[in-house]
């Protein structure tokens, strides 16, 4: 097994990677700003500096690029954290944060908002609330079940998710094909293109609030992978831990979807990546997932906004990258066992 010194080095490496990706992404964009000017503009926020840049430079930096890069990092880390946590509590490495229906619920909330043209902010709120509602319904259903709770959660999640999915399809059917339908479709593909500063303040706190308890409970996640009963004999109330984790993961997922649409595969694939680097122990794997997820989404988003002038929805790119990698993992795991 990897010894702890190696792991420490790798974790530091991941932290450095995130820093590089973060600042690197900040330097990139279709609007050219040279690095020196960029640094000057940043510093001007805290120190008085003579202004030799344009209003547009500042606008791009603070209104367009900074919110986007921050959101990308936060969402990437959050989704990876939620995915890793779910894989632990469901004792199944093939699980993603969408499994309990939060994403589908949020997608429905957003589609509903777009359909009724309720305005930018309200759409995000609608998506967030419906995302949470979906999981509340799932939890309510599973409460009536005594045995095999995790299986019931997953089944209920698939069912509730499907219903909301059908709702979205229906809305797409009756939506105006000129603007509403494309708006819904684009939204579903997942994109950070429209990130505004207010989005960062809307979605950032819930995601961070969602990540925190999961990080704090990471040792207990280890114990939970032994199964509910064994965990209980070691003093862990599996139901409580699971509920807290689900609560945190749902906050993350609903908030992420409410501002950026459906970005898939991050929550499923990144934890595996993290495991390959630092092992299964959640004490390191969870923070590693967060760091890796943030870096990953930042890099992919750079492609999304730099490849062409028209934005490529990031959900498409994560699927193009994530799905083949997932296939590779399945083959590799199958060969190993």
């Amino acid at each position, binding site marked *: 097994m990897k010894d702890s010194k190696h792991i420490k080095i790798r974790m530091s490496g991941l932290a450095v990677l995130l820093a590089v990706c973060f600042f690197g992404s900040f330097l990139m964009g279709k609007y050219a700003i040279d690095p020196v000017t960029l640094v000057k503009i940043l510093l001007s926020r805290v120190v008085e500096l003579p202004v030799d840049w344009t209003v547009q430079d500042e606008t791009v930096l603070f209104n367009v690029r900074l919110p986007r890069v921050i959101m990308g990092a936060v969402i990437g880390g959050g989704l990876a954290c939620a995915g890793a946590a779910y894989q*632990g509590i469901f004792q199944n*490495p093939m699980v993603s944060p969408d499994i309990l229906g939060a994403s589908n619920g949020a997608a429905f909330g957003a589609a509903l908002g777009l359909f009724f043209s309720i305005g930018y902010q309200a759409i995000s709120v609608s998506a967030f609330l419906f995302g949470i509602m979906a999981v509340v319904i799932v939890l309510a259903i599973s409460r009536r079940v005594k045995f095999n709770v995790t299986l019931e959660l997953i089944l209920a999640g698939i069912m509730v998710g499907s219903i909301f999915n059908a709702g979205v399809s229906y809305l797409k059917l009756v939506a105006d094909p000129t603007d509403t339908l494309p708006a819904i479709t684009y939204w579903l593909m997942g994109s950070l293109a429209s990130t505004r500063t207010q989005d960062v303040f809307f979605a950032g706190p819930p995601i961070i609030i969602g990540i925190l308890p999961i990080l704090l409970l990471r040792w207990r996640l280890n114990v939970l*992978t032994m199964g509910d009963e064994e965990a*209980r004999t*070691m003093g862990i*109330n599996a139901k409580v831990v699971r509920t807290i984790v689900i609560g945190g993961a749902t906050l993350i997922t609903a908030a992420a979807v409410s501002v950026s649409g459906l970005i898939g595969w991050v929550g499923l694939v990144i934890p595996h990546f993290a495991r390959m680097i630092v092992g*299964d122990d959640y004490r390191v794997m969870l923070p590693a997932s967060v760091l890796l997820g943030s870096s990953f989404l930042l890099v992919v988003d750079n492609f999304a906004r730099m490849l062409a002038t028209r934005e490529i929805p990031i959900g498409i790119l994560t699927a193009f990258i994530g799905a083949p990698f997932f296939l590779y993992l399945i083959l590799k795991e199958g060969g190993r066992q």
Partner: protein
Amino acid sequence: MTLQVNDLYFSYKSNEVLNGISFQATEGSLLCVLGRNGAGKSTLFRCVLGLLKGWRGQILIDGVDASELSPVQLAGKISYIPQNHSTAFSYSVLDMVLMGTTARLNRFENPGKQERKLAEASLDLVNIRHLRDRNFQGISGGEQQLVLIARALAQQTRVIIMDEPCSNLDYGNQIKVMKAVKDLAKQGYLIIQSTHNPEHVFLFADEVMVILDGIIGAMGRADEILSEELLREIYGIHVNLHEIKERRLKFCIPDQREVSYVEAL
């Protein structure tokens, strides 16, 4: 340290599994529980461990009512060694044993230096220190069972419940595990273990408890209470008991009638 069970009743839906179990066990003893499949051994254990709700009766651990204890508190008094099973994730042997220390930790605390020392000491107790950094899934079945025992030891409870620990082990590993368990009993632990092997009972047990149809058919020292009739009542086949005088040891083999087809050849 005493475990006392008084008039324990439990039913699965309308199926009455435990029909008034009462017994007492004290520390420094290896108590083996015999019974046929479905007799209620696992159910009894799970009630005592707090994994089943809805039982009627009384379970007292050192005089304290178990139903009033939180999972953490209960985990400080009784630990559990399951039958070995595989998980989706792989941990090092040390990390597996560390899990046993969870009950001592605060709500969000991670295991620290003290817990690590505890875990290593537990590894020493069952002589598997050399396996410390190995992958749990990469060691043999017998070694895995020893790791699970070490995990229970790290939990530092005086009472340990083992559910058929030898089921998946080869003959040699079975003996090794039973020996380790017996050593622990000698050191003062109360170990309650279910088993399907009367041999082990004769070889190792301090006391044996027989469960028949949800009640305790008999309890006491193995060589005193385990008779051919009792064994036939438990398992539904005829057995013969023989004794090796030099070793003062009883063992049982199936009666000729049960295996007659072999001898007819």
